[in-house]
């Protein structure tokens, strides 16, 4: 199997879905001739033409709103928001419109749009090129939020997102774009939205996380293995709605749970995971549920030492897991 990067997986999924269905098209800023600021759409403009890879005016609400209209008509738009930080002007279109179209029309209309956006820090992006915005949307029924960690998951989940009959926010960790590589089959496959994935089996402590932090958790698990601590790693993959069964199973397995996110702590995705564990797993717990997250400051500063202090890394996860193992 060929080894491909996380961003190559994005590009392959887009390419395959555009080839598979002529209703699929891309719209966003710089997605056409430039191929996207991260090159996620590189080559697609040449292959599918300017009609299906549309360079839009610089206006995010317009990008999403136009996509929503096309989706209601029966197209399969993929709207790219250049950075997740810049999705804010489109929030009304996402929350008031896309999320509620099926519900408010009593199933008469629906809105199969995919909204892709790179998120996350560790790239010297400063306050407005580093944010994790998923929690802002994770209290909005009608939306699905997918945040894959590996090239294999990216490809299978992005294809599912494009084929989904409801709006999907697809957040890609920009630090993972060229950092994370793995073997991905050439044959067609999809991965169901809404299913978490065990990335490592373990017996002593459980990490539940998503996105780039999955890799930090796996690195920490390797190190702790040498100390005789066995770590179970669950990758949420879809952060809204959550895969409750998988969370309950992973939490109950070890009874010691560390929840990790790069986002701000209070009101985060992992806070909801914690609530699920509290509701369903009380008698299986052997230690208080722990959360390791970004600090509750507005966003990640630009200067390298400050950014590093904000970011999750494998050392922080390793220490938190060790503490939990010896609790």
């Amino acid at each position: 199997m060929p080894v491909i990067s996380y961003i190559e997986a994005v590009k392959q999924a887009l390419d395959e879905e555009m080839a598979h269905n002529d209703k699929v098209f891309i719209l966003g800023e710089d997605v056409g001739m430039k191929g996207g600021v991260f090159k996620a759409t590189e080559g697609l403009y040449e292959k599918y033409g300017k009609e299906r890879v549309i360079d839009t005016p610089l206006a995010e609400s317009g990008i999403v709103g136009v996509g929503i209209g096309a989706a209601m008509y029966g197209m399969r738009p993929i709207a790219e928001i250049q950075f997740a930080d810049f999705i804010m002007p489109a929030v009304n279109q996402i929350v008031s419109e896309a999320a509620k179209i099926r519900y408010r029309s009593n199933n008469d209309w629906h809105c199969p749009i995919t909204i892709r956006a790179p998120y996350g820090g560790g790239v010297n992006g400063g306050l407005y090129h580093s944010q994790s915005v998923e929690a802002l949307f994770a209290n909005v029924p009608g939306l699905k939020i997918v945040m894959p960690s590996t090239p294999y998951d990216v490809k299978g989940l992005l294809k599912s997102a494009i084929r989904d009959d409801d709006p999907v926010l697809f957040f890609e960790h920009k630090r993972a774009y060229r950092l994370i590589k793995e073997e991905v089959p050439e044959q067609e496959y999809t991965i169901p939205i809404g299913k978490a994935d065990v990335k490592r089996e373990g017996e002593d402590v459980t990490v539940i996380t998503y996105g780039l932090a999955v890799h930090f958790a796996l690195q920490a698990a390797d190190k702790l293995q040498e100390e005789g601590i066995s770590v179970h790693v669950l990758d949420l993959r879809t952060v809204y709605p959550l895969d409750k069964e998988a969370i309950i199973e992973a939490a109950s397995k070890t009874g010691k749970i560390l929840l990790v996110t790069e986002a701000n702590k209070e009101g985060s995705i992992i806070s909801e995971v914690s609530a699920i564990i509290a509701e369903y797993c009380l008698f299986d717990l052997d230690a208080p549920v722990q959360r390791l997250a970004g600090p509750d400051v507005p966003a990640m500063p630009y200067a390298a030492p400050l950014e590093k202090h904000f970011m999750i890394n494998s050392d922080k996860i390793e220490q938190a897991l060790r503490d939990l193992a010896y609790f």
Partner: protein
Amino acid sequence: MAENRHEALGLTNEQLLEMYEIMRLARRFDERLWILNRAGKIPFVVSCQGQEAAQVGAAFALDRKNDYVLPYYRDVGVVLSFGMTVKELMLQAFAKGEDPNSGGRQMPGHFGQKKNRIVTGSSPVTTQVPHAVGIALAAKMEKKSFVTFVSFGEGSSNQGDFHEGLNFAGVHKLPVIFFCENNGYAISVPTSMQLACEKVSDRAIGYGMPGVTIDGNDPLAVFAAVKEAVRRAKRGEGPTLIEVITQRFTPHSSDDDDRLYRSESEIREIRKQDGIQFFADYLKQTGILTDELEQQIEKKIAKKIDEAADYAENAPFAEPESIHKYVYSE
């Protein structure tokens, strides 16, 4: 005899009478809603009164079997013209399960009916403008010949979605018609406090499209303007912004008291500017409408509304448990 203006527009006497009947139906339906509201039978009304002539004039210039419309909350005249029935509108007013717009989930005035290409709308204003542009983009991509029509109030012309939508449509020369029903007030705030320019249509030049301002009490003038916009759209020349000057006869909604921000004399004057009455006068002067026919139409409408109200009042609400349905595809 008044000068015949409709033949040159390609409108037959029968079409004019159909237009007139829909305007009247919209008005009488709306008047009934206020009675039902004040009687405590329905919780809310947001009115079309004063704007029906413009709405129906515009709708009749469209292809009512193929074009897409994204109406705003006052567009009873548009949705009636596009095939929604007064019974369906009454079911919406009573929020009953059979309401085709939303099954009683949304407030009145939030229209949507896929089979008639009336696109579902919400309450945050102007979000429908980029949707219309997206549907027009789909038409262009799919090489379909239909036109998309989207309407909104003058207050909406201040929203970002208005500007983002018009600009996108202008850049891509999309077959969409932007129809602003300027009734002089965004709830309580008059146009002078809403716009720094003189007219909403002045904004069109910034987006590379023609902008026109039309007397909304003259449905034939509105018809002509929309017809021209349709021609432009179909020739691939792109979008048009049409502003119609109308009046809002009622408070903003059944929860508003407009005496707080406009004088009673102003309200009295506004009510004299009635496009339906002007249209009836024209029809009578051209010999198309007689007093007798007018009475027959009124009777027919009253019967329709009575039957619709009876039906809707007695129709069941959706099951409470049904609130869990249709969050996602099922």
